[in-house]
């Protein structure tokens, strides 16, 4: 993508006297509407989109095919073994859940902090969240040995008179993840209602009008509606913010509450949450950089937005790096033979390469963002973001597989080798993610129109902030 657009009018300056605009190219209400809706209203689809969709759809099919194979054959089709009872599926689960944190975080927390620059990217990020959570939700479901009985995790009255065990972190997971999925879906949809109304009112064909109209629920932008709407949005944000933090904390409990050396660590909750935000923002950047180019949103999703995200990536990278250090120190300081070994082995044992990769991608590479040039050059940030995602996947791999393969009794140490199905499911989950994402880009408003308009320069200068 050409940097000319940015050169033309740069809004990445930090001059406090000159407030940088959040949208470029002298946007009016109509032009914003036009820019965003044009994507959804375009007749036919571009070749690039079709190719991308074909690829991801194929992967999705492969994903579900392998799930079917898994269910009829048994979880043995994975590489899981004694003692590595958890492996790729759980790694993927934690990875996707982590990704799923950026959206709600951007929408909720930045909203509470009145960070107006969120408006151009929150819709996008929330969508990504929903899809990531969908990918994540699949794995624990198919991970159990008897998938057809997974519903026993729910506390429902049954003829066995049995209830789930509320002491188990896995059950906490069930509640946390399902709550998170529900709330972020509502948050996303509620935010989208006015924009769906926009699409409804611009719709040319009856089908579009009917469908968009159906989901717009008959919104007519009355001041009274706006009043309750904003209040509800604020409340959801206020609820979602702690929820985001709780979800990954609970996921980290799966490990922290157990007594496997390398898992039994008190810093896991903050460490996991930071990691989640880290990977989530990286994923937003990964998707945003190409998307804003393909769909001509450069003036709404400006380099300044990306730069702000890169700053957060840099911050969280530092937190994560600090956590790595703390882990090592505590394991040494604990004086426990097993803890010490677990971490020594993590760094220098058979999976040491994974640990190295993790440190490289999560701690060293993001340091590039200290340089403005790297923060503001799309292709560089793209590369960094992709590497961060790779690194974060390996972080989970190292924690889960590394710790399990060597715990207390050396006699039962094991060796883990993923199978083709493992890899297929990893790739397949990306397929599902991108399929949903491409559909979103094509048919739904990628940018929160109604939220961008108030922060446009054309609105009263009072509303203009950075």
């Amino acid at each position: 993508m050409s940097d000319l657009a940015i050169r033309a009018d740069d809004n990445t300056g930090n001059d406090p006297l000159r407030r940088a605009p959040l949208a470029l190219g002298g946007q009016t209400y109509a032009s914003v509407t036009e820019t965003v809706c044009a994507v959804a209203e375009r007749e036919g689809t571009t070749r690039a989109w079709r190719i991308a969709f074909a690829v991801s759809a194929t992967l999705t099919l492969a994903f579900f095919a392998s799930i079917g194979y898994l269910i009829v054959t048994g979880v043995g089709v994975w590489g899981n073994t004694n003692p590595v009872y958890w492996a790729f599926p759980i790694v993927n689960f934690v990875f996707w859940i982590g990704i799923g944190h950026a959206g709600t975080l951007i929408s909720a927390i930045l909203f509470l902090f009145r960070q107006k620059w969120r408006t151009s990217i929150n819709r996008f990020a929330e969508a990504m969240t929903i899809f990531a959570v969908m990918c994540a939700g699949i794995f624990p479901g198919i991970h159990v040995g008897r998938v057809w009985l997974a519903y026993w995790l729910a506390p429902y009255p049954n003829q066995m008179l049995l209830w789930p065990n509320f002491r188990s972190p896995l059950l906490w997971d069930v509640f946390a993840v399902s709550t998170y999925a529900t709330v972020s879906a509502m948050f996303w949809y509620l935010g989208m209602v006015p924009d769906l109304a926009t699409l409804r009112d611009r719709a040319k064909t009856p089908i579009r009008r009917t469908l968009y109209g159906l989901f717009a629920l008959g919104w007519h932008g009355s001041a009274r509606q706006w009043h309750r709407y904003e209040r509800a949005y604020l409340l959801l944000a206020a609820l979602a913010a702690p929820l985001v933090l709780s979800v990954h904390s609970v996921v980290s409990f799966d490990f922290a509450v157990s007594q496997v050396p390398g898992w039994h660590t008190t810093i896991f909750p903050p460490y996991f949450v930071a990691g989640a935000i880290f990977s989530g923002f990286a994923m937003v950047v990964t998707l945003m950089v190409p998307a804003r180019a393909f769909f001509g949103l450069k003036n709404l999703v400006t380099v300044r937005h990306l730069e702000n995200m890169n700053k957060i990536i840099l911050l969280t990278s530092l937190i994560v790096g600090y956590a790595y250090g703390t882990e090592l120190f505590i394991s040494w300081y604990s004086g426990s033979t097993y803890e010490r070994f677990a971490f020594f082995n993590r760094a220098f044992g058979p999976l040491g390469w994974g640990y190295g990769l993790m440190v490289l991608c999560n701690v060293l590479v993001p340091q590039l963002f200290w340089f403005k040039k790297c923060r503001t050059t799309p292709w560089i940030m793209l590369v960094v973001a992709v590497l961060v995602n790779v690194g974060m996947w390996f972080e989970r791999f190292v924690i889960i597989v590394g710790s399990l393969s060597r715990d207390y009794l050396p006699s039962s140490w094991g060796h883990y080798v993923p199978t083709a199905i493992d890899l297929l499911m990893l790739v397949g989950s990306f397929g599902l993610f991108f399929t949903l994402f491409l559909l979103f880009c094509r048919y739904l408003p990628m940018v929160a129109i109604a939220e961008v308009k108030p922060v446009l320069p054309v609105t009263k200068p009072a509303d203009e902030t950075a």
Partner: protein
Amino acid sequence: MNHDRPSVPETPQVVAGLLAEFDRPETLVAAAARVKAAGYRTWDCHSPFPVHGIDPAMGIRPTILPWLVVGAGTAGVLVALVMQWWTNAVDYPLNISGKPLFSLPANIPVTFELLILFSALTAFLGALALNGLPFFSNPIFSNPRFRRVTNDRFFVSISAADPAFGEEATRAFLQSLDGVAVVEPFHRPAAPPKIPAAFHIAGALAVCMACFPPLLIAYARATKSAKPRIHVWPDMDSQAKYQTQTAHPLFPDRRSMRAGVPGTVAVGRLNADERLYEGKDGEQWVTSVPVEIDAERMRRGKERYEIYCAPCHGLSGEGDGIMAQRALEREEPWVRRSLVDDYAVKLPVGSIFNTIRHGKNTMLPYGAQVPPADRWAIVLYVKALQRAQNATIDDVPEELRDKLQ
């Protein structure tokens, strides 16, 4: 959805209200203030995004939504705590890792999640409900201009239902507002709109479909089927092992239960004492009971006799048991077998013991049901019956004889 179709001239329309269009948020705010001042009640402002400062201008009072959410949150907490306490500590308490049945720390995560879930649902649904959404047939959509409200135009709408509404006066009033671009009416059909037949058919169809599952269930419950029930995941309901008294296809008699090989001796079945276990002494039947005789054993014998023998041989041993009687009533062939006639009296005890064990003629063997000790007890009791049934007056002690007279 009405707003989807442009207003059709032939259906008679009446004015539902007036729209005033603006193109700047500020002018809308100013206009709102004046409409309020003019004393209109059922009116509203419409804008593509929340307009700063419109609420005071229109005098909108804060919504009660937050209070609903607080209530829901509290409910969530209570539900979570009660659920976890009742299920794990009251309804089905289990000793898990020796931990207490209920302890707050372990229950906080779920409590927190439910707090959020309940609150969020309330915030979302509450907002829709209070906003009266979904509402597809809003007459205001009947004016095509209004479609720009979601794009770049701002409107004031005054409903015809407003007591202060008069088409001409209100129109004049609206036109007097500064910054106003256009004033136009919006309509609603005079008669409530006709719902197209397709909707009726679809609805009817849906209802019919909905009836199927309950009907099927009712049918299944009412009728009987010879087939075993459907079983998709066998899991561990039928296992590849043979419980007792099951069938096995590989044996000609198809019993998975096999009889021991003749001549083998199982542990604990040595039964060395031939007199006790066979009732034999060499080739001869034993003539005296090889167990010590006492009242307890006699009682036991009576009890066992009445359970196993009396049905045919009768309580008195004369062969008039209930089976015999029934056979006589139904005139079925029946050999009445008395245990107290001369033949029986002459039998050596060993032989009686052996008959109990192996059966005789139509009598089934009782070896499996009656263990040797009990067999001897029965033999004892039979002997006693024989004695009693063939007793003479001499057998009665002197002092009691007169009682018999």
